[in-house]
């Protein structure tokens, strides 16, 4: 269900960015943290329903999952999503489909411990949802605008 809010956020952001210019958005590339496990089918369905009558009318949504890199500030070791998969699974089984990190990947340090030393003092990159690329058609030419 949360996917509808995400679609809403993406559409509003792109409309705001387009700012009434005479362009057609052809494609939006959205980067999401992989451990939010957003349901891409639902997200695309929501996007297609909500994009109507806007600059995004013809736009396609592409979702790229970004794998987070974790680093423990306590012992200094780096670890991957795979190494904490069991921890994420147990949060999912406690909370169900709408588990905390599904909404807020930045909550990860509250639920994930370093697999080496058990510390919660972990930092992770790629935790925010971002619009990484927008493809637009302007005066008949298609161009890609990448977003920093």
């Amino acid at each position, binding site marked *: *269900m*949360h996917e*509808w*809010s*995400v679609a*809403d*956020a*993406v559409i*509003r*952001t792109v409309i*705001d*960015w387009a700012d009434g210019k005479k362009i057609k958005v052809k494609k939006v590339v*959205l980067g999401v943290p992989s451990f939010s496990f957003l349901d891409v089918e639902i997200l695309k369905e*929501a996007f297609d329903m909500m994009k109507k009558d806007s600059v995004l009318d013809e736009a396609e949504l592409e979702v790229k999952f970004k794998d987070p890199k974790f680093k423990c*500030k306590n012992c200094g070791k780096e670890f991957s999503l795979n190494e904490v998969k069991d921890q994420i699974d147990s949060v999912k089984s406690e*909370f169900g489909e*709408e588990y*905390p990190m599904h*909404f*807020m990947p*930045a*909550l990860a*340090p*509250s*639920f994930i411990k370093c697999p080496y030393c058990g510390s*919660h*003092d*972990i*930092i992770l990159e790629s*935790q*925010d*949802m*971002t*619009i990484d690329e927008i493809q637009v058609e302007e005066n008949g030419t298609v161009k890609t605008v990448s*977003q920093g």
Partner: protein
Amino acid sequence: MEPLRQLAKDKLAGKKVYAVMSAKGGVGKSVISSLLALTMGGTTLIDLDIHTMAIPKLFGLEGKLHEVSKNGIEPFEIKTTKIVSLSGIVKDNYVILPGGNQSSIMESLIAYSHIDTNTVIFDLPPGLGDEILVLERITDFTPIVVTTPSKISKKVVDYLMRYLRERGKEPKILVNLAYMDCDGKVVKPFGEYEGFGLPIDPSIEEYIGRIQDYEGAVKEKLKEFIQSL
């Protein structure tokens, strides 16, 4: 581009937004935010004090999880007050947030919540932290600074007031525990104070967990304060 920030801005656009803050902890800020929200009626109260999460405790909502619909995170509803808290997402788990994660959580909480009232009240953690900066980025809010008449509170509230004024805001000061009403005679046990005073009412303690049932002297006085906003 950060879609969450855009969504958070849109969620608050055109609404009356109040941020209840304090320079110091333990001045009764969350009780006051709750009573303000209840007294105004038709408000959404958003708990940004993510480390204490006192709001759910005051309303007896501990351990309850928010439902999620197509409109987003559905607030808890008590009388005409809607309540959103991170505790409704993490249940009774502790929350550890290194550095920048805090603002990201707050932005998401606002962005994903279903806010359908015209007035939104934020309960902020004490001090000058990320929360104020997040709110400044997304909305033009009216600050309500809660303090007590003690000397130390007066001193620490000064820097918060200075910051807010520098940012072009005109903060309203609510002084908790300001006076006692002894059969019509006003007694100020902690001395004089500046700002709008709220009476001492020891019976509030009995309403922790069901603050929505409180109808005493502090609430009466808050009605007057709300008129002045």
